[in-house]
């Protein structure tokens, strides 16, 4: 057993740390968060693709660098410390892994190199008005018209759609069972993407109004996409979890530093046992998220059955990120809720990502099956 990072991973970690310190300093991220006119993509997408990050989760034969999921997770843990927003996860990890599992050889050859270069940005249009991440939450239906399809309906709270050039749309086909996947041009006639405002990051309403999709853009078998889609999602989830681990870590770092500086009653607040309790709770959440996440990654990379571990990691890290932020706020008290200070960036992200790719409740239900408690 060896739970340390290897040399490559340490290099990735250092490079990402530099990036977060420079291009994504807290001042810049607060500005991105508060100012609707600042463009996330213009700020750093080019830099990210030049660093090769858009190709890390993609095999070499499709234009990527074929890194392990663990390598990718190390990158995302550091991005999570920003927290750096943007579609890198949605496009270069989630959609890339789904395409790898479901696409034809021709589709992979056509699409994955563009994702790897950062030219195309993919987002997964899965969730609908009756929000959920299981196969049976998909109610949208495509209509077959000759060799082509027509899509109509609403996808809701779609992560990163606002940045997308291409959408991977999950829908059934009228008259058939199961779900299918369609690649749709985000600018296609009949597609409208509207960013939703609130205490969340980069979620959109995506409306399809009689959108024509060519038969060649059906990804995977008609009605038979679920297995590959699920496999792709299960591989990507721990990378998202690592991003949350990074968030927890930064909240912990900020909080422990603050508790060592801030004085009240003539002493630093970190000496008060009540403040220590908050920090202890915080670090417990951080470590629970970290180790469940990294074991799941190890299982995936080494080709073991990882399903249970992935469900555990997602259930734990969603809850942990939420709670870590709460404890961070307890430690900071007033200053922590000042937008300019930056702690609320994490708080907002923790809420925003709580349900993405399945809330803890969904993953506990999946775990019930893995544990053979239900059929």
């Amino acid at each position, binding site marked *: 057993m060896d739970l340390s990072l290897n040399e490559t991973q340490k290099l990735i970690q250092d490079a990402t740390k530099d990036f977060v310190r420079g291009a994504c300093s807290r001042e810049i991220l607060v500005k991105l968060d508060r100012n609707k006119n600042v463009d996330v993509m213009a700020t750093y997408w080019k830099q990210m693709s030049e660093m090769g990050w858009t190709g890390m989760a993609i095999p070499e034969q499709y234009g990527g660098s074929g890194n392990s999921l663990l390598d990718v997770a190390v990158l995302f843990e550091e991005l999570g410390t920003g927290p750096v927003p943007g579609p890198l996860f949605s496009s270069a990890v989630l959609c890339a892994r789904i395409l790898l599992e479901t696409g034809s050889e021709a589709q992979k050859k056509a699409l994955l190199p563009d994702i790897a270069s950062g030219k195309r940005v993919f987002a997964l249009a899965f969730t609908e008005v009756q929000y959920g991440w299981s196969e049976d939450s998909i109610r949208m239906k495509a209509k077959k018209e000759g060799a082509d399809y027509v899509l109509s309906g609403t996808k809701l709270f779609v992560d990163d759609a606002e940045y997308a050039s291409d959408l991977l749309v999950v829908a059934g086909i009228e008259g058939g069972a199961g779900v299918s996947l369609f690649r749709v041009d985000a600018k296609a006639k009949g597609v409208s993407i509207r960013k939703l405002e609130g205490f969340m990051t980069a979620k959109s309403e995506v409306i399809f109004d009689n959108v024509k999709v060519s038969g060649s853009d059906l990804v995977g078998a008609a009605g038979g996409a679920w297995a590959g889609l699920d496999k792709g999602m299960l591989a990507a989830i721990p990378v998202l979890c690592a991003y949350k681990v990074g968030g927890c870590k930064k909240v912990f770092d900020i909080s422990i530093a603050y508790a060592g500086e801030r004085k009240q009653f003539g002493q630093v607040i970190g000496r008060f046992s009540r403040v220590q309790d908050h920090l202890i709770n915080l670090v417990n959440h951080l470590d629970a998220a970290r180790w469940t996440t990294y074991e799941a990654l190890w299982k995936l990379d080494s080709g073991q059955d990882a399903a249970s571990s992935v469900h555990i990691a997602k259930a734990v890290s969603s809850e942990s990120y939420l709670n870590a932020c709460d404890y961070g706020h*307890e430690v900071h008290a007033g200053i922590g*809720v000042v937008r300019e200070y930056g702690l609320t960036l994490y708080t907002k992200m923790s809420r925003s990502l709580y349900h993405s790719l399945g809330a803890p409740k969904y993953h506990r239900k999946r775990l019930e099956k893995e544990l053979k408690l239900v059929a």
Partner: protein
Amino acid sequence: MDFAIEDSPEQTEFRKEVRAFLETAVPPGITHTVDAANQPREQYELRRDLGRKLGAKGWLYPHMPKEYGGSDMSSDEVMILNDELTRIGLALPPYYDSGGRMGGPSILVWGTEEQKKRLLTPIFRGEVRTWQLLSEPGAGSDLAGIKTTAIRDGDHYVVNGQKMWVGSAHGAERSWMIVVTDPKGERHKNLSWIMVDMSLPGITVTPMETLATGGEGGAGGGCKNTVFFDNVRIPAENLVGGENNGWKVATTHLEVEHGGTGRLQDRRVIGEFIDYCREKHNGFAIADDPDAREQIAEMFIEGEVMRLFAVRNHWLSHTNQPRSYEGAQYSLRRKLGSLDISERMLRIAGPYALTTDERWAPLQGAIEYFQRDGITSLHPGATTDIQKVIMARRMGTGGREREQAGKLR
């Protein structure tokens, strides 16, 4: 024992009178507003108008003495008044008035007869809005560690320093503030309270953007400000409770702020959310899901415990009974309970709980606001840790002498 707010025949009449009054006095558009931080000026002015109308009847601070603009109203009648306002999504006072809510009782207990007449009457009649100024950059939990000074100079005090976390949007006519009057004096024996006219020269108010405003939604909190004082001259007659006696006066102020008087209009968002879950929206009802129903029930239970602590405190304080840890206990429960409830709402409603979008947000965004407010309201008044410290002292844990609750009358 009787928990019912039973209306006697006179009270039934009173309820009718209140309802009839509110029907004519409350203008459209100010009830059930969501995000107090984003209240436009016009909305604030309408609320102030309503405050003046309520004040003219002695209903703005109804439990306060008649001679200073209150009504000497009994606890049951105050409940009726609160009840009727809650029903239309308003609170008493219908705008942010922290200096009135906390300064009022303090001046009542510690002021001279002349001061009570002069300072309380305009507050209780709704003629002025008053902010409270306690915290500073270096003094939050450690209130006694403040640095803003007020030095006597003839008939005036000259004030210099900086206060933080002040007030709301749209300004205030007055501020009720704690200052150091003896910079060389012993801790706790160097402080005083003073009423400040906010139009005096040398005062600068700088707004600051916060996540939310912290539990003052119903009363229209608005943003928070930093206030700078540069040689501001305040008439000496505005110092209340005696020079260097401010720590004693603070016990009354903080007792109210820490929930000692209870609060009857609590977190109406809970009931509204449950209604929302029951109804069909966008083709489905959240309550169709049995897991969601269980969460809703748990959330409701937490809300009930919070409510009952508030009702108990209201009863204790309005019937003038001895109190101990109850104020801090309610405050603590309300802070942690609200955060817990907001997070349950997130689990129950999914990302819907996070949006203000016109088309998709439940309750016009009230749930999104509550997500932010649940976190923010952990801090105002005093943190959860400090509430625990107070509870322990008042219970006399470890055989210590029990600390007394602050005087309210």
